[in-house]
């Protein structure tokens, strides 16, 4: 079942979500029957928490719908990988297509949800996730910019605070942008947010181990509840 909340919920009887719980939380927000792209890295782990009965079909930008889980042992096939070049399997009803078709599918608005990581998300839903802007960094964008503007709904999965404690949900991104006004939801270890990009409004859906008031003090972004 897709997780739907009537009002903002503060879960104060527990700590922040661990990585596995966060992946499960993202999975719970994906409607049954959705066509979904899971980004490289942490978003890939969302697949482990999808209900097989929900009929969710995974897209991988290197040309496949109906991607299955990671392949091991005899199931490894060098011709069958995900976007992270990890060997995967195919599910019944899978299909293959070339790269231009795969990205046309994305840009054409046919994917329901994509899940990406982020360095920063702004209150207007701007996303920065491809480049830190460090002068010695080799730029590499992959499919991130196409995914950010292509999927109907873009979910971000990240820690709300960087290792140095700075918030990654910000009034305005300072890192180079991946896409403008493209993020609709942000899943973090301490809270889940919906973003109204036109209004620049950030609404808290639920919190984990922290209350909304404390969370507001730690962010430069005004929060609303429902």
């Amino acid at each position: 079942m897709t997780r739907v909340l009537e009002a903002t919920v503060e879960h104060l009887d527990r700590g922040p979500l661990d990585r596995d719980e966060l992946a499960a939380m993202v999975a719970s927000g994906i409607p049954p029957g959705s066509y979904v792209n899971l980004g490289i890295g942490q978003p890939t782990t969302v697949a482990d928490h999808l209900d097989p009965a929900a009929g969710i079909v995974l897209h991988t930008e290197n040309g496949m719908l109906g991607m299955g889980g990671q392949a091991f042992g005899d199931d490894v096939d060098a011709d069958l990988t995900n976007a992270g070049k990890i060997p995967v399997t195919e599910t019944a009803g899978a299909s293959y297509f070339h790269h231009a078709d795969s990205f046309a599918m994305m840009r054409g608005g046919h994917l329901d949800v994509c899940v990406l990581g982020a360095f920063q998300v702004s209150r207007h839903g701007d996303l920065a996730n491809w480049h830190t802007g460090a002068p010695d960094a080799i730029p590499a964008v992959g499919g991130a910019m196409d995914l950010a503007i292509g999927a109907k709904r873009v979910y971000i999965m990240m820690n709300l605070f960087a290792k140095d404690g700075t918030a990654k949900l910000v009034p305005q991104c300072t890192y180079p942008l991946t896409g403008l006004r493209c993020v609709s939801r942000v899943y973090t270890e301490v809270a889940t947010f919906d973003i109204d990009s036109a209004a620049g409004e950030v609404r808290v859906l639920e919190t984990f181990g922290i209350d909304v008031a404390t969370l507001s003090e730690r962010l430069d972004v005004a929060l609303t509840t429902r």
Partner: protein
Amino acid sequence: MSRTTIHTDAADAVAGIGDGATVLVGGFGMAGMPTTLIDALIEQGATDLTIVSNNAGNGDTGLAALLSAGRVAKVICSFPRQSDSYVFDGLYRAGKVDLEVVPQGNLAERMRAAGAGIGAFFCPTAVGTPLAEGKETRTIDGRDYVLEYPIRGDVALIGAWRADTMGNLLYRKTARNFGPVMATAAELVIVEVAGVVEAGQIDPETVVTPGIYVDRVLNLSALTDAKEAAS
């Protein structure tokens, strides 16, 4: 008699590639990577190349070997930085190779445009980002787009699964990736395949790349047969 030629010698298959050529190289990671053709290109000696590929080489083989042989002046790709892209990383940091980073979908679509005779196209990808800086933009029906131009190759090197003697191609699983698009976008299209069958042996309904796009086919199973006969 088909215009497509079938080769059993890799050197023949890559003959005539000139210095300064723009070479489209298929593959996503190692899936669909035409490694035999790349090795033959290293042997052949063409230099000052512009390479268009999703990545910029893995480990020490294939594109990485071409780079480390000093044959590449510029790489146009979406994702050069990988855990094992140390050959490219070293050359780039030493200022020995130019880099144009292109969003993956734009990389594919720009080659598709080249192959389809499209002069340019407006695309929503990268609007408002550093990769759109200096490019023409237009608002159409309230949405912003960036003008993107085709990428055309002098040569395409592609890995496919099976060809027939007409040059019709089948691919395997996600090794298809850039192959069908690159096949349309280059003047000289060279494909390595695991095996070649007679015309008529591939169901026409299943052909992915029609032979019109394919100039030369390198039959890898013939190479394997020849190696086995020699040993």
